């Protein structure tokens, strides 16, 4: 055959076709300059925030330094005091005499002067005294007195203190409750908002991708070799993967910047909440991205994509408003009041509705113990809904993607031409 290579054909199945389509979306978009630059910019912003936090805000918020002078008589208290004081950063200096100490307090170079004797010291200040410092000094003197008395009675103070330190008061809870408190519904809310933002950005990218294939007419060649459903799923998967990669890179950068600098800390129990949240996130993404792709296939021009996908985004906004208006108040009430029955309200039912479950379930799970059957019902309904939506979306897509020009009526696309 004219020196051309002999036919080399592999029987590509459904999955490898979807992977080919997804792979093209992924590789062409990941190399896109705007994508790379925007990712780097976001990481730079996070890095800048971390630097600012460490170098500027931390200076503003750190424990204040407290300059304390000790007369030669009270100098013995200086060392133990510095090591036993927390909450205020005590800087210890020795003054040569009471008079020079007084004048340094007056001039402001010292915040306080400890005069008197080690057993009964006296604090000299210009006007106000730092309470933390004052109580630290008081307990130091009391401890010294107590230790001396114990020794005089022939007891070993270090043994006694060790025994006292071991005393615990256990708590017995009659109702289950999350011990880590307020931070967890916060995680659920963050995940819900993340889904909303992600779909806001990447939903549009998916819609634009569908219309771009339509307006460049390449879709006709594609449909002569790829089933419309495979094309749709591959496209959604490829673009979603690009978005998830960006989120993962940014999250990793955030962890690298933030955790070593102690800007923000997560309780260990939050990790499970986050992993669960990611699962709901992916399911929600699958559900909404397919709907967006199907709606976008109705139009032929990129400027119409936002309008065409508006109904889908509205459903998402309703879910989001339900989260803020119903689920969050109930969730926070249940955490602060320990009142679980509050969650038996509308949120319980709404969180099992497939279109809202990806937003409401993470909030509920983060806030309180959700019965396993409710999670199972929500997950099963959601997966069933995803399958149904995927089939419907493929139908709308294949019926409208070859109609160039005027917007295709949704009902006509559903019915088929």
């Amino acid at each position, binding site marked *: 055959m004219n020196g051309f*290579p002999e036919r080399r054909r592999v029987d590509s199945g459904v999955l490898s076709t979807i992977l080919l389509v997804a792979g093209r979306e992924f590789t062409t978009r990941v190399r896109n300059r705007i994508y790379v630059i925007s990712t780097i910019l976001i990481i730079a912003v996070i890095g800048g925030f971390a630097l600012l936090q460490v170098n500027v805000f931390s200076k503003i918020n750190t424990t204040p330094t407290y300059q304390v002078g000790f007369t030669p008589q009270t100098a013995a208290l200086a060392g133990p005091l510095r090591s036993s004081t927390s909450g205020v950063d005590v800087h210890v200096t020795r003054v040569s005499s009471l008079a020079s100490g007084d004048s340094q307090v007056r001039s402001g170079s010292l915040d306080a002067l400890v005069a008197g004797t080690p057993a009964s010291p006296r604090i000299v200040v210009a006007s106000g005294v730092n309470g933390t410092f004052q109580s630290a000094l008081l307990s130091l003197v009391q401890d010294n007195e107590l230790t001396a008395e114990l020794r005089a009675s022939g007891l070993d103070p270090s043994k006694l203190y060790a025994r006292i330190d071991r005393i615990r008061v256990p708590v017995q809870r009659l109702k289950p409750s999350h011990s880590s408190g307020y931070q967890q519904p916060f995680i659920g809310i963050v995940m819900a908002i993340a889904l909303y933002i992600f779909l806001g950005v990447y939903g549009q990218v998916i819609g634009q991708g569908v219309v771009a294939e339509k307006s460049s*007419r390449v879709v*006709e060649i594609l449909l002569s070799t790829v089933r419309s459903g495979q094309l749709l799923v591959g496209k959604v998967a490829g673009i979603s993967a690009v978005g998830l990669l960006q989120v993962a890179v940014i999250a990793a950068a955030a962890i690298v910047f933030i955790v070593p600098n102690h800007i923000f800390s997560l309780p260990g129990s939050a990790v499970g909440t986050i992993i669960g949240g990611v699962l709901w996130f992916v399911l929600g993404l699958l559900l909404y991205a397919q709907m967006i792709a199907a709606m976008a296939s109705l139009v032929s021009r990129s400027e119409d994509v936002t309008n065409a996908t508006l109904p889908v985004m509205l459903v998402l906004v309703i879910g989001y408003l339900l989260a803020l208006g119903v689920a969050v108040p109930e969730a926070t009430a249940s955490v602060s009041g320990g009142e679980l029955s509050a969650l038996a309200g509308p949120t319980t039912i709404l969180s099992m509705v497939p279109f809202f479950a990806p937003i409401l379930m993470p909030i509920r799970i983060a806030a309180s113990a959700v019965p396993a059957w409710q999670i199972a019902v929500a997950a099963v309904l959601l997966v069933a809904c995803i399958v149904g939506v995927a089939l419907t979306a493929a139908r709308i897509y294949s019926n409208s993607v070859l109609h160039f020009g005027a917007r295709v009526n949704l009902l006509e696309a559903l019915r088929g031409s």
Partner: protein
Amino acid sequence: MTEQLLEIDRVSKRYGRVLAVDDVSFEVRSGEVFGFVGPNGAGKTTTMRVVLGVLAADAGEVRWAGSPITFDTRRRIGYMPEERGLYPTMGVAEQLVYLARLHGMTGVAARRSARDWLERFGLADRGAEKLQKLSMGNQQRVQLAAALVFEPEALILDEPFSGLDPVAVDLMTAVLRERAEAGVSVVFSSHQLELVERLSDRVGIVRAGHMVASGTVDELRATAARRVWVDAPLAGTDWASELTGVKPVRAEGTRMLLELGEGADDQAVLAAALRTGPVHEFRPDRPSLAELFRHVVTEEVAE
């Protein structure tokens, strides 16, 4: 081995109330070039889309090598849609490789084939560029390469010559003939009837969704009314009107085109012409495809 026969069997397709394709049948053998002609809106594109599975037929069947065409067999057909389209911002070689792999080629074979076809079309050094950077003519070449890159067993080309410069037309013609000689079944549509006549082994004429004539150009000629040119300068204008079954069509100078009806004898016509004086020319008329097309299409309209 079963012959790679592409059969379109009584296919119909309706858009709402419009019957775009009505009971259209034809077949294309391996190594055959089938020219598909007809006025705009006659149903050529719809028929091709049905063959490719881009549209579903309402009735009828498309068969490949004797069995109904399936999704897998369709992937062996190269398609060039009337509305050209590739990815404008994707690399030229990259998208050829992608399309070849979608049609089932392995990555290695796809890359080699893409390189070979780009070389063949004089685009070997443009493979890394984005498609939109290429001139329109070169984009058309890439489009053809996209239909050929996966070594298809059949080619369906919708208006492959429209918008091509003469050099590209020659290239396209050569490639199609060469592919046919390699055993590929080729179906193409065009309005350039001289080109269709020159390139096609067989021709199908569609009008308003119907296949009104199909066969080799000679077969189409045989079905057309017999006509003869007679140059008898001294005969005058109405010498032939007395002959039974003979109808004058038109005159060009001293030459007359006569249509011979059922039972008319061309030898009787010649004898009658000779009786008027000398006869300089007497030959059967060989209508071009363009004339046959015009005849078939207008005749149907007149009914």
